[in-house]
C-alpha cells in the first residue's frame, strides 16, 4: 500500500469545487492519460488510463466510483479499481478529497501490482507522486 498526501488550489469557491470533484466526466480526464470509457451511473464510470513509458505504454482499465460524499464536511472518496490490459497487474486506489475554501487536500491510498510494481516501490511512489502533482495542476483549470 502506497499512501500519499497532496494539496491543491483552484481559487474557486468550495461549492464549485464540490461539484467538480464528484463530476467523473470532468475529474477523470484531469489524470494524465485518463479517459472516461462509459458512464454507468451518476456516481460510477468505466475508465482507463494509459501510462506512457517511452516507446512502451501500459493501459489500466476499470471503474471509478464516488463511494463517499459528505456534503457537510465537503469530503468525498473516489475508488479506482483497474486491471492492466493484456497483463496480470492491477492498480487500485482510494482517493479522498477534503475541500477547504479555494482548494483542499487529496489523500491517496494505492495498491499496484504487476510490471509497474516490479520497478520497485521507490519508483512507484515517485511516479504516483508525479501523476498526482500533475493532477492537482490540472484541477486549477477544472
Amino acid at each position, binding site marked *: 500500500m502506497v499512501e500519499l498526501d497532496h494539496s491543491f488550489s483552484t481559487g474557486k469557491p468550495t461549492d464549485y469545487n464540490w461539484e467538480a470533484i464528484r463530476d467523473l466526466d470532468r475529474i477523470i480526464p484531469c489524470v494524465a492519460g485518463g479517459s472516461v470509457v462509459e458512464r454507468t451511473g451518476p456516481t460510477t464510470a468505466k475508465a482507463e488510463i494509459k501510462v506512457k*513509458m*517511452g516507446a512502451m505504454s501500459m493501459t489500466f482499465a476499470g471503474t471509478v466510483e464516488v463511494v463517499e460524499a459528505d456534503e457537510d464536511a465537503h469530503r468525498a472518496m473516489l475508488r479506482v479499481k483497474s486491471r492492466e490490459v493484456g497483463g496480470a497487474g492491477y492498480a487500485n486506489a482510494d482517493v479522498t478529497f477534503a475541500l477547504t475554501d479555494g482548494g483542499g487536500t487529496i489523500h491517496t491510498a494505492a495498491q499496484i501490482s504487476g510490471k509497474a510494481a516490479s520497478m520497485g516501490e521507490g519508483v512507484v511512489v*515517485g*511516479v504516483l507522486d508525479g501523476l498526482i502533482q*500533475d493532477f492537482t495542476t490540472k484541477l486549477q483549470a477544472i
Partner: protein
Amino acid sequence: MPLQPGSYALGPDDATLTVKTERKGAAAKAGHDLVIDVTSWSATLDVGAEPSATALSLTADSRSLRVRAGTGGMTSLGDEEKAAIAQTIDDEILEGAPIEFRSSGVEAGVDGGLRVTGDLAIGDARHPVAFDLAVDGDGRLTGGARLLQTDWGIKPYSALFGALKVADEVEVVVDATLPAGAAA
C-alpha cells in the same frame, strides 16, 4: 595510409551515421538504450594536401531517424514501438529541425587520423563540436562525438513524470568507407 587528396561524397549508401542514446532516472529499467540510424544525410569531405586544407560538411534530415535496436527495457522493442519512437523524435524532440555541420578546422590526428572542429547547427541553435576521425588503410573512416542535447536547446525526452529520461549526452558515430576512385 593517409587519405588521398580529393573530394569525397558520403551518404547512407556507403556509410552509417548513428545516434546512440542511454536511459537514466529511477525508472530507467523500463526504458531502452537506443541505436538510431540517420537514414537521409549527405556529407562532403574535401581532402587537401595537408590536413589543414581539409574540410568536412554534412547535412542531415532530422525526420529520417529510425531506431535500429534497443537494449534493456521490460519488454523488447517491436516495429510498432520503434516507429513510435521515431514519431516522438519528430514531434517532440527534433521537430524536423534542419541539421548541418561545417568544419572550421582540421588537424592531423593520431595514427594518420583527423581532428575535426566546427559548428553543428540544429535548427536555429549552433554550437561548436570537436571529434576525431580514424582512417585505416582501406579508406575506412570512423569516429564519433559525444554531444549534450541541451547545448542545442533540446530538452531530453522524459516520461513517467521524470522517472524515465533519455540522458542529456548522446553519442553520434560515423562509419564510412570512402568510395574507391571517387576522389576528384
